[in-house]
Structure formats: C-alpha cells, structure tokens
C-alpha cells in the first residue's frame, strides 16, 4: 500500500493544492484527512515531492511569516491544473480496467 501510494504521491499533492494554497504541514494533514488516515508515509518525504513539482513548473511557492516563523506556501500553476486533470483521467481509466478484471 505504501509503495503504491508513493507512486501516486505527486497527483495526490496536486489534488490537495487544487483547493487552494497550503504550506507543507497543511498539505500532509490534508492528505491524511482525505485518505481516512491510510496515507501514513514518513511526513518528510512530501517535501522532496513538493520541490520536485515546483521544479517541473506544476507548483510555485513563496515565503510568508506565521507565528514568527518563515513558512513556504505552495500553490498550483495552470500547468499543475492540466497535469492534475490528465493524471486523474489516467487513474480513472486504470482503476476501471483493474476493477473489470479483478473478481
């Protein structure tokens, strides 16, 4: 389960950020909430994914201040929205095919 989730972590992060800008901790909390607690990866692994998505131009980020600390806020770009739509479609097709075969 953990390996499968790792494989789809990027689109899951894009889906969470489609609702609005969030910082890293909030992204992880939202992932946990939406997965009913099933998504229980080491939380640090989300940050390399956030940085990777930003390098690909799917996210952009900026510093803000919260409670005296620096906080990096991530938001989806137009390219990120297109990528999310494409991945969601791909996943639905994949799920339909697998469900059609499994007993």
């Amino acid at each position, binding site marked *: 389960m953990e390996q499968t989730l790792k494989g789809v972590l990027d689109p899951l992060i894009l889906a969470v950020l489609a609702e609005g800008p969030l910082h890293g*901790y909030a992204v992880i909390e939202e992932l946990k909430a939406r997965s009913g607690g099933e998504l229980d990866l080491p939380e640090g692994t989300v940050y390399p994914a956030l940085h990777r998505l930003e390098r690909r131009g799917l996210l952009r980020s900026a510093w803000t201040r919260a409670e005296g600390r620096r906080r*990096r806020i991530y938001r989806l770009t137009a390219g990120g929205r297109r990528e999310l739509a494409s991945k969601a479609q791909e996943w639905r097709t994949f799920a339909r095919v697998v469900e059609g075969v499994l007993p």
Partner: protein
Amino acid sequence: VIDELGRELTRVGIRGRRRDRILAEFADHLACDPDANLGVPRLLAEQFADELATDAARRTALWTFGALVVTAIVLFVAQVSLPTIPDITDGRSLVLAALSALAMVIGSQVAFVSGTLAALRALRRKRVTALPAEEVALLRRRIAVACAAGAVTAAGSALYAFNVWNFVPRWWSVLAVASAGAAVVPLAACAVAFARASSITVSKPGSAGGLSADLGALARPWLIGGSAVLAMLIATSVLEGSLVEGALRAGFEAVAFSACFFAFRRPLALTG
C-alpha cells in the same frame, strides 16, 4: 532532527539557499507538530540530492547540446567565409597547421558524439525522478567531454587563423579569432552550470546502461564508424574531384574514429 538533516544535506552537497529553505520548511513542520514522523534525515537528504542532481544533469546535457549547435554554426560561418583556402605549406609552421587541423576535425567529432549522446540520454530518461549514481556520472562525463572538445575545436579554429594570418585577408583572420572566442562563451556557461551541478553527491544504486540505452537497435559503433568513413570517402572524392584524396581522408577518418573509440569507449559508455 534539524541539526542532523543540516549535516546530511551538507554531506550530499546541498548548500546555500536551497539548504536553508529545506531546513526552514522542516523547522516549521516540527513547530506545527513536534512529534511528527519526518523520516530518517540521511535518507531524506539523499532523496533531495538524487532528484536535484538528476534534474541538473539532464538540464545541463540539453544546454550543452544547444551550446554546441551555436558553437558549430559560429565556427562554420567563419570557415566558409574564407575567400580562398591557402595551401597547407603557406602558414607560419606545418606543426601549427597540423595541430589546428587535428583540433578542428577530431574535436568537432568528439564534441558531436559526446554532446549528442548526453542529450539523447537526458531525453530518454526525462520522466525518471532520480537516476542511479552511475548514470548521473555518465551524463556528467559526457557533458564534460562535449564542452572540452567543443572548446578544443574553437581553439583549433583560432590557431588556424593565427597560422595563416599573413596569407588571408586581415578581416577574415580577425573574424575567425573573434568567432572562436564567441563560440566558447556558451560552452563556458555550460561548464559553470556543470561545475555547480556536479557538487551534489548521488546515492541511488543501479547501472548506467550502455550505448543501447541511447540508440536502441542502432547501437553498433563499428557500423556508425564505417558509415562515417564511407561518407567521408564519397564527400571528399566528389568535392576534391579525386578518389585518391577521398581515400586519404577516409583513411584518416578511420584512424581517428578508432583512436577516439578506444580512448572514450569506457568513460562515454560507447558499447553495450
């Protein structure tokens, strides 16, 4: 955790603003939840490093190919604008003539092969998040050889202009030396990007793959070399109007190809 992550990031070569940003984000995370399970700092730093180094190597490979195209155009324009080609004995010295010819002929071909293979590998692996350390090292070697060979070609062009300075129009000599200098600029920019990217250590295990990972079924070096020799034979025979001249140059091409192949077959993964 933050201190250990900082040490691990430094160990893998992530420094400066990128390191500060990662640490600030993790510090903010721990401030939100002091009991958070962030993972093992060493593995996190290695994941950041593997992905950053992969991106940088791929990007620099494509930039290097673009820089070589610019270099080739600039040097080609300078060479074809020469009104009359002086005889090989007309220059200051035969040694300089031979050195410049070797630099231009061999340097350009090594740069072409190395730069093209680097770009091909980068494109073929464009969807891979993190390449194995061996493959990143291969990309880096191909980039380094391509940049160096491109610079050698430009130096050969400048040396040729210097050698025949008194036997060609002054404007052409100045143009040739200036174009050689201009041709080096994009390569130097790539070399700087390369040096920065190479400071990151990659940990992911795995093999680099050989020439078939770049060229698929076309990965037959001797067939490629034979084609180059045949092309040289036909082109020079037609252009010079002499089969003997064509055969001589094709022979030189065969020797040059063989020597370069044996010199670079391991560092540039020209087999397998």
